[in-house]
């Protein structure tokens, strides 16, 4: 600005007035651009929100009905001071679970969240638990950054996933512990129904999945099992 003024003394105007006008123009431009962008964003947000929520719901639903086979309906619950409350407004990861019901509205089991440190980053999973069978009945990975071709087999390898079709998780309510802890064995060494056959070459990822399910069962079964009857009643 000052350069221009110096180079052309004929159009020199009072400096103060010039600067004030400049500032006004700057503020005006920036605020109108900001207002415009704000309106645009709000408009788009309002328009896309239902679609995004539908997508989220479909994603959760798909995961829940994968881990509890036969499920067609579900209801979200949250753990809260020894009680379970339906449709929790806000529940942290691992503090929420889904009760799953079949075609005939019968209670099939619950889908629970679990997470643990994997080889690369935290692995988050959803697994199904059937109180009736006292078994883990399914598992799917919600989030993982495990090595492609190796650790990511925890979600892709059908042989590994078969571990979770009927993983023994009998609970001894007297001692408040699992009868047998869920353990991970070396590849091809699974003997007992509470063991998980590790993926060859991805022992760390496999062990992480086993450990998180074990820990989640140990924490959640004591506060879930007393409410199973209530869950059976409260069909959606």
């Amino acid at each position, binding site marked *: 600005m000052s350069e221009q003024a110096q180079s052309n003394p004929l159009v020199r105007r009072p400096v103060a007035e010039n600067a004030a006008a400049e500032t006004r123009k700057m503020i005006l431009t920036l605020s109108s*651009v900001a207002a415009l962008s704000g309106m645009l964003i709000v408009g788009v947000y309002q328009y896309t929100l239902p679609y*995004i929520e539908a997508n*989220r719901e479909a994603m959760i639903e798909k995961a829940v009905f994968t881990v509890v086979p036969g499920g067609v309906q579900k209801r979200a619950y949250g753990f809260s001071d020894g009680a379970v409350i339906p449709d929790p407004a806000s529940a942290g990861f691992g503090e929420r679970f889904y009760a799953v019901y079949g075609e005939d509205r019968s209670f099939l089991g619950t889908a629970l969240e679990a997470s643990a440190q994997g080889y690369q980053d935290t692995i988050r999973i959803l697994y199904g638990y059937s109180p009736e069978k006292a078994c883990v009945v399914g598992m799917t990975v919600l989030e993982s950054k495990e090595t492609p071709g190796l650790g990511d087999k925890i979600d892709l390898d059908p042989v590994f996933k078969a571990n979770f079709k009927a993983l023994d998780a009998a609970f001894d309510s007297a001692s408040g512990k699992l009868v047998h802890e869920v353990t991970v064995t070396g590849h091809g060494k699974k003997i007992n129904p509470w063991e998980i056959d590790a993926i060859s070459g991805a022992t760390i990822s496999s062990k992480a999945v086993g450990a998180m399910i074990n820990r989640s069962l140990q924490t959640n079964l004591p506060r879930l099992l007393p409410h199973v009857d209530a869950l059976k009643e409260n069909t959606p």
Partner: protein
Amino acid sequence: MTATGMSESIWPVYTRGLWRENPVFVMQLGMCPTLAVSNSVINSLSMGLATLAVLVASSALVSLMRNVIPKQVRIATYIVIIATFVTVVDYALQAISLDIHKALGAFIQLIVVNCIILGRAEAFASKNSVVRAITDAAGMGLGFTFALICLGAVRELLGNGSLLGFDVFGPQFEPWAIMILPPGGFFVLGAWLLVFAWFKERSARTAARKEPSHAG
């Protein structure tokens, strides 16, 4: 007459970004998303189209407002405009497919700082008419998408044995895990740059050979 004159002057503006000044292969801009998300064709395509949308929309708006934006705050204004369209694209992508949105992760939001976009706003859109600005942005955006797909195709083919999700080599294929991992991005980008450098050198040689024959 005017129409042909128009298209003649516009055509090079469009093709420049596609090939001669391709943002990735020639100017080597926007390397961060290029390396990070190009591990499959679908991710590359989504990232490319998202960037294209932001680039075209922000270039158009910058060009429209080029005479009212004071020069002292022009960069701030461009960033606000770009950030707005990035947010719009972010929501749109979530509405279209959460899976793709998850795969691209933070790199959608990071389009804001993609230097191609700010670069075109500053170097071209702020000095040209709306039509020319949109043409330039479309060329650059498509050039970026093309480059990403080039990388994504090689990485998905070797790293997963598939193309756009379709199995190419059959079940017996042993995937090269490294190609999906970050180092694979660098290797494949290096290989493509080699190909482009070779092309450029060859065309320069043929041009040099033609030159004296013209003179003679």
